[in-house]
């Protein structure tokens, strides 16, 4: 299904209204101090806005939207630092399943994700120097290995694990409470999100699809894109917060926003937000175009992630600076945005890694 930009702006307005109301500063603050995940909120968002099944095809209970719509949802959620499994459960997990091209598995897994009753997460990163391995005996697959930095792992019902098989990579599904799986919450730089370390010890899993090499590449592209859309949301909101502040804070008898040094910092933030917006829109368009050349799609998505994630860190750092002393306090919201921005920058390919990758792809480095 496709939507027009007018449809998307209407969707954005509805979401902004709802999320502003449901994810107020106190809620985010409580979560950052250790409050539990609000599963009722996720059910409510799933039921009222179809957020959980946004990109899941209609035949499996979803809205059948594309990544342009997902970008709107991710941007809006990041603006309010929504403490809910949108990126992991509604974007990455469905993408992981769909990229396996296994209709039977999709029919089994996706409807529960779409209606918000099942929170699914993707376990991608392995612990250093080891790789999760999947083996098959008499038609039963088992996985052993340790996955780290699993986003929303502590709240997951279903874990999608990427593991090495004899001839490549495979995608495997396992319930978070099954035998042989251990999910342990880890500390995280981003206080508005929870990550887990997941250990599988010869755990019985269900294989989803066949060889997952192409699937992994697609998952990678979507992850880079999704992180870019979130970075845009973080940057856009931080700019607003900072501009509002410098319009009211007075020193030396005038609002500090009238000082040219402050103006230039705000203008530089604005430039990065607008460039990020352009990049996310351009990347969404090419990702949703089934005829696009995959090498060009990867190039655009990589450029977008490299740009947007660094831009968001710049905007968050500058926004914090503009708040002066108050911005350095634990109580102020600045550091929550900075932590989110920095985490997004470092995950799914840091700008440094992505630039090296681009240099290799384009033959500028050997």
């Amino acid at each position: 299904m496709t939507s027009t930009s007018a449809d998307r702006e209407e969707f954005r307005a509805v979401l902004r209204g709802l999320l502003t109301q449901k994810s107020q500063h106190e809620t985010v603050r409580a979560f950052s101090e250790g409050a539990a995940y609000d599963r009722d909120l996720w059910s409510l968002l799933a039921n009222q806005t179809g957020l959980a099944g946004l990109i899941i095809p209609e035949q499996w209970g979803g809205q059948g939207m594309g990544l342009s719509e997902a970008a709107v949802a991710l941007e809006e959620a990041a603006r309010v630092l929504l403490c809910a499994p949108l990126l992991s459960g509604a974007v990455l997990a469905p993408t992981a399943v769909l990229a396996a091209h296994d209709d039977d598995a999709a029919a089994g897994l996706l409807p529960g994700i779409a209606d918000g009753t099942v929170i699914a997460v993707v376990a991608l990163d392995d612990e250093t120097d080891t790789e999760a391995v999947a083996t098959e005996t008499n038609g039963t697959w088992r996985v052993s290995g340790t996955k780290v930095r699993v986003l929303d792992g502590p709240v997951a019902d279903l874990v999608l694990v990427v593991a090495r098989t004899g001839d490549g990579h495979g995608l495997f599904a396992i319930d978070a409470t099954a035998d042989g799986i251990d999910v342990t919450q880890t500390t995280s730089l981003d206080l508005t999100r929870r990550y887990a370390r997941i250990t599988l010890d010869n755990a019985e899993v269900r294989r989803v699809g066949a060889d997952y090499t192409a699937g992994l590449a697609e998952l990678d592209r979507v992850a880079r894109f999704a992180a870019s859309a979130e970075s845009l949301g973080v940057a856009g909101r931080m700019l607003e917060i900072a501009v509002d502040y410098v319009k009211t804070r007075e020193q030396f008898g005038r609002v500090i926003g009238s000082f040219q040094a402050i103006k230039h910092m705000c203008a530089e933030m604005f430039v990065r937000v607008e460039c990020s917006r352009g990049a996310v829109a351009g990347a969404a368009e090419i990702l949703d175009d089934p005829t696009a050349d995959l090498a060009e799609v990867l190039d655009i998505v990589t450029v977008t992630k490299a740009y947007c994630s660094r831009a968001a860190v710049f905007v968050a750092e500058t926004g914090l600076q503009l708040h002066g002393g108050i911005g350095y306090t634990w109580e102020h919201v600045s550091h929550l945005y900075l932590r989110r921005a920095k985490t997004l920058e470092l995950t799914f390919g840091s700008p440094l890694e992505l630039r090296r990758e681009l240099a290799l792809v384009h033959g500028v480095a050997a």
Partner: protein
Amino acid sequence: MTEILDELREFLDEHLPVFQAQWPDASSWEARCAWQRVFSTGGWAAPKWPVENGGRGVGTLEQLAIEDVVAEYGCPVVPGMLGLKNVGPTLLAYGTDEQKKHLKNILTTDEVWCQGFSEPGSGSDLASLRTRAVRDGDDFVVNGQKIWTSNGMYASHMELLVRTDPEAGAKSKHAGMSVLLVEMTTPGIEVRPIRQINGGAEFAEVFFTDVRVPATQLLGPLNEGWKVTMTTLGHERAGVAIFAARLEKRVRELVAENNVNERKEALAPRVAEDLMDAYVDGRVLGMLGRQMLARLRDGEQPGPEQSVIKLVQSETSQRVDTLGLDIAGEEAFDKEVGAARDYLSGRASTIAAGTTQIVKNIIAERVLGLPRA
């Protein structure tokens, strides 16, 4: 759109080789004038002008697409650009029937126009200009000085912005200005070239001492010259989208040229990283430009993205200039061509058409709503 571009290609396929055979060095002023005379016969030199005035009546998007094809064919740069793109549209909007007679001569290069806007004391702050025109009988008498006048050395005519009511200017800087159409041979006008850091002299200083300009040469209403001038400037705003596309292309070419297979040795890691940095920014700028064009196509007005593109394009292009010189290394020292010339020329991009600092002020004040001092 494709039909008109096909027609243009047909025109260029037919006429460009003939011209090139006649003018082996197409970079001279005379050669460029000759090319404009050929080019304008097809209605291509000023495609946005109405058909009855020798144009094609197309919109901004078509004009940008036409410029792309012209660049692709490597046509000489037409010398009458300011007349074709800036003065012409203003004459069409405000000119009397008599004044519109200039249009035909602008097309044929019988008249070459420049614009007298900036002054030594009025660069970024154009509205503070001080060149005065005082009414005396049937004439205005002009005294003052203009600077950074493009094509000032070659021009036969000038669109001159002057202050006609100094008292109005005290209340609002934009009030009390008028536009005069001036022949450059009028007694009392002295033109001196300005030599730039790259050695060229594309600009002039123009001095006015008791220059008498007939009152019939007033363009548009008296004391509303700011509005008249802004129409002119507004005509070219969409052009930044083309700058964005050109920079993206240039960065992609620089990356391709530095493929390890094309070079004796690989780039130093730091230079390779800087190059990919510029690549990232160049491609993002390209996406931004394409979206601006798409919005124009949908009939929307360009918004703050034109300031954003201006800022990023100028700074990124300077980084690319620097990289080009870094990569060329010592080989670039003994000649002021190629990378070294680009590097020097590029310093203008963050100064011309609003310095980076002024554009940042404009974004902060007009877009973000921060208070003026």
